């Protein structure tokens, strides 16, 4: 589903963010992407989402070489990849339901089935009772679940979460990741970039560890530091 082949990313300042990175994440995989700050996790995510271009190497998403993607095809790529952020990125002037429906409008799928799809997404994340609330009225964990619902409503085959538990307490962080596990169980490929050592060590999923832009470990059933 996501293939990196000898990918290098060097910024204009000369800083090498990714150095000859190669890996293959298959469909339905659940992968933790770990490493210290500056290891290259966020750069990797931005390359997958075509928010940035690699200096060299190839990147494939769902069989498509995205390094050769034309500008007008980038929206199509991004509709296949749901991204969840540490700071949730919700629109404060829209209700929970409107934030989720916003994704359907953006991808051109807003029709009379939308309310049902929004309800289904909110139900999946356990927020059916919060549809009329505004983001400012939610807890951190609830806000993150709204972000996940918005991500899910368009049913992308891949979900990438960049530090989704960074602003959450321990219990809420655990609930959030369990939600991602449930999403993975129904067939979505999930990649979670995280610093949360306890989560990674407890869950023992596949771990791709980055250090100074290099893949130093790619291990199924691995921990944060093995």
């Amino acid at each position, binding site marked *: 589903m996501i293939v990196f082949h000898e990918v290098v990313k060097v910024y204009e300042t000369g800083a090498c963010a990714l150095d000859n990175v190669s890996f293959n994440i298959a469909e339905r995989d659940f992968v933790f992407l770990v490493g210290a700050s500056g290891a290259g996790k966020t750069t990797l995510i931005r390359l997958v989402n075509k928010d940035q271009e690699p200096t060299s190497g190839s990147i494939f998403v769902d069989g498509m070489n995205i390094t050769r993607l034309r*500008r007008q095809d980038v929206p199509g790529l991004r509709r296949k990849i749901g991204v969840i952020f540490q700071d949730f990125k919700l629109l404060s002037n829209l209700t929970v339901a409107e934030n989720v429906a*916003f994704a359907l409008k*953006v991808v051109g799928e807003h029709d009379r089935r939308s309310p049902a799809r929004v309800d289904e997404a909110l139900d999946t994340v356990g927020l059916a009772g919060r549809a009329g609330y505004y983001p400012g009225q939610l807890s951190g964990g609830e806000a993150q679940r709204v972000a996940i619902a918005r991500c899910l409503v368009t049913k992308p085959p891949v979900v990438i979460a960049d530090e989704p538990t960074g602003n959450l307490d321990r219990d809420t962080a655990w609930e959030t990741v369990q939600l991602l596990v449930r999403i993975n169980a129904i067939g979505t490929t999930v990649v979670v970039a995280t610093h949360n050592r306890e989560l990674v060590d407890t869950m023992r999923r596949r771990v791709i560890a980055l250090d100074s832009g290099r893949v130093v470990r790619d291990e199924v059933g691995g921990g944060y530091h093995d």
Partner: protein
Amino acid sequence: MSSFWRNRFTGFAAIITTAIMLVAFGALLAVNDTLDNMIAALGRRTNLVAYLLDDAKPSEVSALIKDLSAKPDVAEVIFVSREDAAEAFRQTLSELAQVLDVIETNPFPASIEVRMLDPSGALRLADDLRGKSSMVEQVLVRADVVDRLQRISRLTRIGGAVLVVGLGAVTLFVIFNTIRLAVYSRREEIEIMKLIGATDWFVRGPFVLEGAFIGLVGAGLAALTVLIGYQRLSATFNSLVAFLPIETETTFVTNLSLFTVLVGLVIGSVGSYFSVRRYLGA
């Protein structure tokens, strides 16, 4: 509309700037059209008028008329008596006719009006007529007037074009920055849209529409101003130059108004399109 309302002060400034530019544009077109009509009207009229001395002998005047009529490049010769001239004044400037009743004597001289087959011969003929100082007091060559009007028209076109281009650049700049502010105020929403997979036009469209709205409203105001102003001013102008039957097309102002609206729409859309491209990369 909600985006426009959020930045309404800059939006209204953009509308006013657009309106001012388009009023100048419309006024320039109206002035040029009027000048063109005057030139055309003069072209259809006599090319040369020889005003006669009050004591010119009738026999000499008749002989002169006969001579002029025989010239190969003269199309028509018309003798206008003093009474005919006074009557023409009453007809064309009726609001001033009562002035004649106050004056005891007829102030208008008799004249000979000549229409040339080839207007280029008018100056030479005028010189000939000026030589007959025993009969002719003054010779007025309309070609001079036409030349002067054409020069004025050229200057108006050039000067007006410079003014309109300058104002147009200012208007584009104001719309550009108004949309830039709108983009900035919605940057969070735009970021999310692009991450979710919005196409460039989904992101760009509302801003281009906002710019088009600004251009349209500004143009609407301008068209209304030009319409009202033209009707009021042309009535006054026509009374001042009533001796010159200028034909003004009734559809001209309608077409001008529609054209103004179109120009406003285009400027608004183009200004906002380039602003969005510049600041969104979309």
